[in-house]
């Protein structure tokens, strides 16, 4: 029963902040690599898009390439090219799978490399597309690895170097959401929930969250809420921004505000997003004592993902509170018996755009052919 970082379920290295990772794995006097990046890049350039995944199988393979040696990598990258930008994304993605500690440093280096492109934004549609793809996928991988602090920092730098609205061409609308998601991840690391559990104060005793930590968690979540509300100004991500803002507001105990945000997030064709919205609406309704509304919301979530245990638990609990014994019995059994391989999108909520990365990479490879 070792305590895992309080974060999403599929990532095993959740709290890896770039600098810390770098220090902890920096090789001591590593030998000059026998086989550098050139042959891998060469194969990649000729259309062998699996070469990175096939060649770099472990963190040891990354170490051999001395990818944490910033100057060396910089020298190898040289002048900016869209091919190398895409190739770096492949490295980042593969690092995410087999060598998570390399993700942060590679993204930092890659971001600087992208900014080094000579031509101004707007001069070349192709180069703009490559840069835009880089930011989107790099931020997506950071989200998948739950590297919240680095995501927030990444977007801060991006805003400085590519301020809007002059640089719209390299800003995917989803990047507006990334900072909010990153901040949610930061909050998650501080405390599982920033919500004030007044009801339970009598039981907490020494186990209660220290006031300073609680205050920090609240301030963190308020910041996340602000970021997400800001992101809701972009129509393309409005529904997700409002859904996440609703959950953030709920965690702050602002239940009516949460309900309003969630109400404004309806109508998405994204099934995962609709599930999250229904799930959060269930929780908010719970908190407002509206058990019948909660039951309907959880039922909606169950319809979207019948194997999602989280929604089924919420549904069973709502029926239980409504004293609908037969229905509650049935819901409990259904919750306990969900298929082990069944999908529960709650489990990937904190990974944000991580759910899109595979698709984005596939599109990138297709475009390279």
């Amino acid at each position: 029963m070792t305590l895992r970082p309080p974060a999403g379920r599929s990532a095993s290295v959740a709290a890896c902040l770039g600098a810390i990772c770098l220090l902890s794995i920096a090789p001591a006097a590593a030998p000059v690599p026998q086989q550098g990046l050139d042959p891998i890049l060469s194969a990649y350039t000729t259309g062998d898009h699996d070469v990175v995944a096939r060649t770099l199988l472990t963190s040891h393979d990354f170490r051999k390439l001395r990818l944490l040696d910033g100057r060396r990598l910089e020298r190898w990258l040289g002048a900016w090219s869209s091919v190398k930008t895409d190739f770096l994304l492949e490295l980042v993605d593969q690092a995410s799978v087999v060598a998570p500690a390399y993700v942060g440093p590679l993204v930092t280096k890659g971001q600087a490399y992208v900014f080094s492109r000579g031509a101004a934004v707007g001069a070349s549609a192709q180069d703009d597309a490559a840069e835009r793809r880089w930011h989107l996928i790099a931020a997506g991988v950071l989200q998948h690895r739950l590297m919240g602090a680095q995501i927030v920092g990444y977007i801060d730098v991006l805003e400085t170097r590519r301020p809007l609205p002059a640089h719209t061409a390299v800003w995917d609308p989803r990047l507006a959401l990334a900072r909010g998601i990153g901040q949610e991840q930061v909050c998650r690391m501080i405390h599982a929930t920033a919500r004030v559990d007044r009801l339970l104060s009598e039981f907490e005793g020494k186990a209660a969250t220290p006031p300073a930590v609680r205050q920090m968690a609240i301030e963190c979540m308020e910041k996340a809420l602000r970021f997400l509300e800001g992101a809701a100004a972009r129509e393309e991500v409005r529904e997700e921004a409002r859904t996440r803002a609703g959950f953030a507001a709920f965690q702050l105990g602002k239940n009516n505000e949460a309900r309003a945000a969630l109400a404004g997030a309806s109508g998405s064709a994204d099934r995962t997003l609709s599930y999250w919205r229904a799930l959060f609406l269930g929780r908010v309704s719970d908190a407002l004592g509206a058990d019948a509304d909660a039951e309907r919301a959880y039922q909606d979530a169950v319809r979207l993902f019948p194997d999602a245990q989280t929604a089924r638990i919420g549904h069973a609990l709502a029926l239980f509170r409504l004293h609908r014994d037969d229905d509650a019995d049935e819901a409990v059994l259904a919750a306990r018996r969900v298929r082990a391989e069944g999908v529960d999108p709650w489990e990937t909520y904190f990974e944000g755009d991580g759910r899109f990365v595979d698709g984005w990479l596939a599109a990138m490879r297709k475009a390279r052919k």
Partner: protein
Amino acid sequence: MRGLCAVGLVCAALAAQAQEPQQPTFRSGSDAVTVDVSVFDGQRAIPGLTAADFDVRDNGVRQTLSSVRPNTLPIDVRLLFDTSGSISQEDLERYRRAMARVAEALRPVDRVEILTFSGRISEVVPLQHPPITVITRRQDRDGTSFFDAVSLAMVTRPMPERRQITIVLTDAQDNDSFFDKDTLYASARHTSAVVYGVLPTGLADDVSRFATRLEMVARVTGGRLVRSKWDGRMGDLLIRMLAEFRQGYVLNYALAGTPDPGWHKLTVTVPRAKYTIRAREGYFAR
């Protein structure tokens, strides 16, 4: 009062279905409340108490007990094992033996169901009469969803003809739940089962700071929290808990003087002696 029927509270119609001949029935129009109570003098269970010995207050209003009986009714046992983290094959085997021992200690009229959880909750043995076959296996999902799992384990159907006990073995750590303490507390207030918690001792990690989570559930439902090593004697410990539950009393009364729906606070005492009394803190009237 109309339609009053709650956790720990049995409607007239339900009570009339009781199978045991000694089970009291309540006429239509009355609202029957059933409460599990354990009475101890130190470690010793106190036998032989009668209705005259108990003082029961429901929302502060003294109630007249219609019956006080030793807890000889059939029982439903729900076992919930935390199998998250670095549980070894040896640990799993120890759990399996403990589960099997509990089942062996049950009477043919009793029933048992067994659940495990890590990131998700799974049914190992569905509710059934003994004997049972237990097969434990490691779950693929990592993480620990304590609040989700224990909240779900609180869902019970009030049964006038049976008593319900839920035993939760966990270190109460959580890093993966969607639900939280509020949900758990609300669920514990609704459950009709008496909940016992077993918190491991002697772990490398000091988990005592999480004990309040389990303590709260046990206290609200009239059970208790036990700290113990999770070793080969775990089965004995669980059987002692069952025995303790069976040494208790089942109190019945027809609710009077406090007809409000919602949460009813219960206070049970034995005025003539300084005994330790364990009873649920209240129930929800429907």
